[in-house]
């Protein structure tokens, strides 16, 4: 026997010895589409939305497409593992695209779960985080969604669609969430979902944005403030609708669609006083009016633009006001101060929580109308 063949044989033996222990056959495991965590009676309640494997085209009849399994544990991993006490298959948590955090847990302490989530390699860090508002995560996961078999895939999809169409909430990934949680000078947010009554029982609705202060949830932003939060986020955004009152004679509204916009946030340090300079540059298209006025004249366009800018600015201000009221730096201004004026941050950093509510802002909004969708003039009703 040559040296090579002995080495090859050893190699194959090593493969057998070290390998094979981690195989997870699909028909011995359950696919977890969504994960919900809440605090109940001092224990963590973990709920998993197990997707029922189904071949396309084969209707499963009356069986729902999923099953929610939940277990309680004193820690997250204990809760996750206790699922096996009542479920015959190994849960594949790596497939979970949604993490629903219960309000109770959010208000208590995120540290209860954050370390475990960060360490657990099976939990997808690009999963979408939402907070269950006034309902339990288990109920959110247990809700049937119209047209969509799983609420865990429906919620991220709803978030993505509304951002493009309405422009209210922004999707937050688990990675981003944990990042903001850990970093000084910035506090995390997450969109909130709630359940409303509908014809077919309960339905899911996106309702506000949960604002955290450190490890605890401080309150909610309403939809207008959430919109402001989106405008205030440094970077580019695309899509969204602005609805402004008709600028001239008569009642009616005017709809403007945001095409793209860019926000820049700078911290200016004037005599030890931090002023946040926010510059927003946006472009939009004229979309509709409900009145009959002859709005689209060349001289009217700057007027429309300035009303839009005002609207955007007031959304921002509303958001800033709420955030300052909740004492939660969800905009990451502290972080901006830290990176632009490290010396100032060294001084202010420890007391940022106290300083943030009093930070002044200078908001500059430039908005430009670009197109009017082929039609130049609105209908003349004769």
């Amino acid at each position, binding site marked *: 026997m040559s040296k090579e063949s002995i080495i090859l044989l050893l190699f194959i033996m090593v493969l057998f010895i070290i390998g094979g222990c981690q195989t*997870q056959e699909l028909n011995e495991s359950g696919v977890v589409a969504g994960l919900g965590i809440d605090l109940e009676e001092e224990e963590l309640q973990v709920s998993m939305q197990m*997707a029922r494997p189904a071949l396309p085209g084969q209707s499963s009849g009356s069986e729902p497409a999923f099953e929610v399994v939940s277990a309680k544990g004193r820690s997250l991993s204990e809760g996750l593992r206790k699922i096996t006490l009542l479920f015959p298959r190994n849960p594949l948590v790596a*497939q979970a695209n949604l993490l629903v955090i219960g309000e109770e847990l959010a208000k208590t302490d995120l540290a209860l779960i954050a370390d475990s989530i960060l360490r657990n390699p099976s939990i997808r860090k690009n999963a979408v985080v939402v907070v269950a508002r006034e309902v339990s995560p288990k109920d959110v996961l247990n809700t049937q969604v119209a047209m969509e078999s799983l609420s865990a895939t429906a919620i991220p999809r709803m978030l993505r669609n509304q951002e493009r169409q309405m422009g209210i909430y922004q999707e937050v990934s688990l990675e981003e969430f944990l990042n903001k949680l850990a970093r000084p000078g910035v506090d995390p947010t997450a969109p909130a979902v709630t359940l409303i009554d509908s014809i077919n029982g309960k339905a899911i609705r996106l309702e506000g944005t949960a604002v955290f202060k450190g490890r605890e949830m401080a309150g909610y932003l309403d939809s207008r403030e959430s919109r402001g939060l989106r405008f205030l986020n440094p970077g580019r955004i695309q899509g969204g609708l602005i609805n402004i009152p008709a600028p001239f004679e008569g009642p009616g509204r005017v709809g403007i669609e945001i095409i793209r916009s860019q926000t820049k946030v700078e911290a200016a340090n004037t005599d030890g006083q931090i002023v946040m300079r926010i510059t927003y540059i946006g472009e939009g298209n004229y979309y509709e009016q409900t009145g009959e006025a002859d709005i689209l004249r060349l001289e009217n366009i700057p007027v429309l633009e300035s009303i839009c800018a005002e609207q955007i600015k007031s959304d921002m201000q509303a958001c800033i006001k709420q955030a300052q009221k909740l004492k939660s730096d969800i905009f990451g201004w502290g972080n901006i101060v830290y990176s632009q004026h490290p010396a100032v941050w060294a001084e202010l950093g420890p007391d940022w929580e106290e300083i943030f509510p009093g930070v002044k802002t200078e908001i500059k909004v430039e908005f430009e109308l670009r197109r009017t969708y082929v039609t130049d003039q609105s209908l003349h009703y004769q």
Partner: protein
Amino acid sequence: MRYIKNKPESKPSPQEVIHTDIPASLDEIRSQLDTLYQFCSDIVIREFVFGNPETRGLMVYFDGLVNKDEIENNILRPLLLDIDMLDVKGDLTHRDIINDVKTRIISPAELKGVKTWDELIRRIGSGDCALLIDGYGEGLVAGTRSWQSRGIESPDNEVVIFGPKEGFNETLRFNTAQLRRRIKSSNFKIESFVLGRITKTDVIICYIKNIAPDSMVEEVKKRVNGIDIDGILDTNYIKEFIIDDNKTLFSQVMHTERPDRVCGQLLEGKICILVDGSPMALVLPSTFTDYITTPDDYYTYYIPASLLRLLRFTAFWMSLLLPSLYVAVITYHHEMIPTALLLTIAASREGVPFPSFVEALLLEAMFEMLREAGLRLPRAVGPAVSIVGALIIGDAAVRAGLVSTPMVVVVAATGIASFVTPSYNASLVVRILRFGFLFASAVLGFLGIMIVLVIVLLKMVSLSSFGVPYLAPLAPLNLAQISDIMVRRPWFVNRSRPYLEGMRNQQRQGNGKDEGG
């Protein structure tokens, strides 16, 4: 001792005769021929008397290998009848009859004198006919070869859409003629060897002088001459003797049945070996990239040809890795599959009793069997097997819950991809390696695939074919040549030949210099 001595003198054995010269006396010749060709029913030995004074002659040939018309008209008729017309002055006894016969009487185009039995046996064995005349220890061998041979057909295994459709056949001369017809230069050399102690097979080595590196030609000749075997029936016999590394899966020599492909390779400085009786030509040195290219690439317009080449690369990787990637993903790396797809796969795996690896192995093995069965089936049975195969593997196995549908799709896609690989040799390697990868993926997932991939790559990098690195020009990297690997370089920019160590003439077109013939 007396007793033995008084016995009639024992005849020499055929083995002893072979190495002797042809005797002068016709009687002796006759008796030696009888010894040599005892029990050979296909030999024809014809004795006759010709000329004035009468001279005894003998003709020997194998029935079925010669053109009898030619023998009758060009050899026997002139000897027996037309010799009278020869203006012979004086006494014939003192004349050199054999020389007269050779130069004045018989008329085959190809005529050669041989002096040893060894040579004579080889010549008549290849279809020549030998004329032996009493009193001269020399045989005249006339080229009268003619036998039933397969026509020049389009090769079944290397089909091209455009371009020449001729293929080699089993007769060496026809094959060299096809090459010579394409390369008319006097620098195109065809050197002949005889190999095989019993079969005495003609083997030729051809190359273009001044393009093929001399050192390489010498090395090939040396290796071919070193072969000592009883018989050579196909080029593969030679291949296994002359390759650099004979402990590897990877073929370092290219097989082809297409003269145009051989010529294309010769023009790149390669060397070709042909064997009488086999339509397969060996082209060497051959590197990995030769298995992914086809002659069709060079006969098609370069843009579609390049895209097809990319497609072929994709198919190559697919046929190598698809089943193992699939097994790795569904047993280890579930997070890589989108949820909807995972649910579909999971649903079809419900109730399948085997682990995914066993399932894949089962289907792959079944597919390989089906493929192998299909190769050697009589035509009439072929459709039956494909119906049974398709139904059993495709449908019944899924219905019976033995395998899952996605696995059937994966194995089928792999099968299709493996047929895209143009070279049968390469696809053989891929087929074997695929099982290695499958095994590794079942044990270690992606990590296992990577480990095997690295091992395979290391082996390939360390290989060389007649001094040419096996992965050239990818490793060692040659940027100038790599453009003709990933895509098909258009002819108008294809100015130089792929470099071979020792190549003297690398210029391919248009610098005014003579191209070496």
